[in-house]
């Protein structure tokens, strides 16, 4: 039995040991792995990157804690990207259990913005993010289709006051923002069918550029909208989130997860390849012996 054939008959416990070791090491170690970026995600990043200081992005955080693991990293990456570029953001949260989680996320990112950071070679000074100047969190209202339509007339119709109870009229940032006409991009991050309403009632009626962040299982069914141009880009699941983090040079939870995923997948692929090398090697030898 030569070395190749040993590959084939390895005790499976070696597979387990190697896999555990690799997972734990990559989980603990803090290094960066490149993430393959797909076109659908890059479009979203490029769009935000091309916006000028003071532009407005509406970020619809339409998921609840159930799909937090997949979608939260997207929110973190996109919001941080916007704020570093001094783009103003409006948040809505049209999923019933979303607002509390959304508020927490906003505060987390605000903290992170107070530090100096370097992204893609550009140093951004830490700054204080001010509610009402840099962002406005509108909160939750039932009947999402009607809310989305209402915001097309004016934000203050469905939301006379923001999540914290401040009337929209007295929020400095909202003085020059009336409806979608002043919004440069809408990003809907969603784990359910609110996305459909954003596409048909929002984009369909008011024609703003719309980007989607979706859970992994939902992604395939929204590809047709990419083809038809109703949606500019799609981020799918943890993979999509990691791609955005990669583009924004802001490694977060998604990239942490993907680091382990990539290593684990490589280990499994390695074993499959080893097994097949061994298989062909032994078959070759058997053939030879058969002839001899």
């Amino acid at each position, binding site marked *: 039995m030569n070395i190749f054939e040993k590959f084939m008959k390895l005790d499976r416990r070696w597979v387990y040991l190697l896999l555990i070791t690799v997972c734990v090491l990559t989980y603990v170690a803090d290094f960066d792995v490149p993430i393959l970026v797909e076109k659908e995600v890059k479009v979203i990043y490029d769009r935000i990157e091309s916006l000028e200081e003071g532009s407005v992005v509406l970020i619809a955080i339409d998921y609840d804690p159930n799909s937090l693991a997949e979608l939260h990293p997207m929110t973190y990456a996109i919001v941080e990207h916007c704020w570093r570029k001094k783009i103003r953001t409006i948040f809505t949260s049209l999923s019933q259990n979303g607002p509390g989680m959304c508020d927490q996320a906003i505060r987390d990112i605000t903290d992170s913005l107070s530090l100096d950071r370097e992204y893609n070679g550009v140093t951004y000074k830490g700054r204080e993010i001010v509610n009402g100047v840099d962002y406005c969190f509108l909160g939750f209202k039932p009947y999402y289709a009607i809310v989305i339509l209402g915001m097309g007339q004016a934000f203050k119709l469905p939301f006379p006051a923001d999540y914290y109870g401040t009337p929209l009229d007295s929020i400095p940032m909202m003085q020059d923002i009336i409806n979608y006409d002043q919004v440069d991009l809408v990003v809907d991050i969603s784990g359910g069918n609110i996305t459909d309403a954003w596409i048909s009632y929002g984009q369909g009626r008011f024609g703003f550029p719309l980007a989607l962040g979706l859970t992994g299982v939902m992604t395939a069914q929204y590809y047709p909208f990419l083809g038809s141009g109703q949606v500019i880009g799609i981020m799918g699941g943890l993979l999509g989130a990691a791609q955005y983090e990669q583009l924004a040079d802001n490694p977060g939870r998604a990239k942490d997860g993907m680091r382990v995923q990539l290593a684990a*997948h490589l280990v*499994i692929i390695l074993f499959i390849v080893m097994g097949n090398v061994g298989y062909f090697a032994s078959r070759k030898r058997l053939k030879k012996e058969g002839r001899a």
Partner: protein
Amino acid sequence: MRRQIPFALVFIFGFFMIFQFFVPHETSEFFYEFLLDWIIVIGIFALALGIWSLFKVSVEKIKLGKEGAQYSYVTLVGLFLMMAFGFTQKTGEGWGLYFLWIVLCGACIVALMRLRASASAGSKRMWGMMALGLLIGAVLVAIFDDAWAFYFYTQEGLSNSMFRDFFDYIMMPILATMFALLAFYIASAAYRAFRARNLLASLLLLAALLVMSRFNPFLPGAEYVAKASNWLMNVPNMAAQRAIVIGIGLGIVGTALKVILGIERGYMGKG
């Protein structure tokens, strides 16, 4: 007669349920919900049979002195403690003699197991007396201790802190880890079975490899791999699923019809 009645019941209720599907009227809906309740209630009553079976098999292991029989105590004590927690809750601040009661109950279960497992009349009597004594003790504690009470009709027991801790720190970690073992099993299964033995095995292998490499940035042409894996998931996989779903649908309908019409009686041991 005894053999025929069950098949008649299957026939009557089976046909009723088929036709119910096409009748939206409230009366039909009432019977639909009513019959579904039957199924649920019958299932819960049957659980007693299951618990009895678990008890019997565990005791049998001790009786036969099988290897690892001592673990049966862990199973049954865990079972009865969990049930005890689920139906009790403290009434005030303190727990009183609750933990004494728990210990008495646990000991009583062990004594009962020994009683059933013992072969000689002498040890039977001894364990019997012990079980009875512990039971009387437990009942007395339950009667005279006011710090906690039984709740069968309302759900106080579900918020019992012991019940919660057993669930959060025993059940959940074990179940979640059992599930997580899949990460390793999927790897070893792939290693062991993905060999290009023939054309079909190679197709399986290649499709799996391609999809597993979908976010691997080190591959040449990585972008196309990602795209191709997306295509595999949404075109051939979709086609396979659709075919299987339709086949399964017909298989289910065919089998269910055979059962209702009494052509297939294997489920009652007559095939």
